[in-house]
């Protein structure tokens, strides 16, 4: 894994940007959650992916109950990976009983830009953003 070329024509693997949102069951302890999060982080890096960003929302209220639970731990991975990786990643999600729900999406150039700006805190001036942050604290 010495050279990671993103988009050259010759034989190198094309890496796309993806984002996966995972909802873990609220019954996990803090350590169990850490383990689970670390496990998937490892899967990304071991399969030729490249982790860009991670976000943890902590225990969040769900809009509707899933598996009779009204809360869940949200975790978001943003990563670069070859296209074939997503299916293996999602297979791992399905096999894991700690995961209630997941969603993987491809990021286009606008969403990549949006995420970068979000990380830099450019949206925090707005009313909604500050409210959300306060709620998190």
């Amino acid at each position: 894994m010495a050279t990671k070329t993103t988009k050259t024509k010759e034989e190198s693997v094309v890496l796309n940007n993806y984002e996966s949102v995972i909802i873990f069951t609220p019954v996990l302890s803090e350590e169990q959650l850490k383990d689970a999060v670390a496990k998937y982080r490892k899967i990304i890096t071991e399969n030729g992916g490249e982790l860009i960003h991670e976000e943890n929302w902590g225990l969040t209220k769900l809009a509707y109950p899933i598996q009779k639970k009204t809360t869940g731990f949200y975790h978001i991975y943003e990563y670069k990976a070859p296209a074939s990786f997503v299916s293996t990643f999602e297979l791992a999600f399905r096999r894991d009983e700690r995961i209630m729900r997941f969603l993987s999406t491809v990021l286009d150039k606008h969403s990549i830009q949006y995420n970068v700006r979000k990380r830099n805190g450019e949206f925090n001036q707005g009313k909604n953003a500050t409210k959300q942050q306060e709620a998190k604290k």
Partner: protein
Amino acid sequence: MAKPQKKYTGSSVFNTTPDAAQRKKYCRFKKNGIKYIDYKDANFLLKFVNDQGKILPRRLTGTSLKFQRKISQAVKRARHIAVLPFTGDMIK
């Protein structure tokens, strides 16, 4: 120009009151240069659903077709990850 918009909440954004009906509708995404709609941002997406959680038609919101497609995609994704409810009464 962009800022006073944020003050409105819910359906008052959309020109449903009689005096506002004559005002021309416009696509807020085109006007404000928004290119990506985040499906994880529940507060923003709430502007595009009604009290029952249904996606509002573009004839009410004035959104252009391009962005209406993106809104619907984003709302559906948000529902899947339980950021928005599928149905509900008075969800706002």
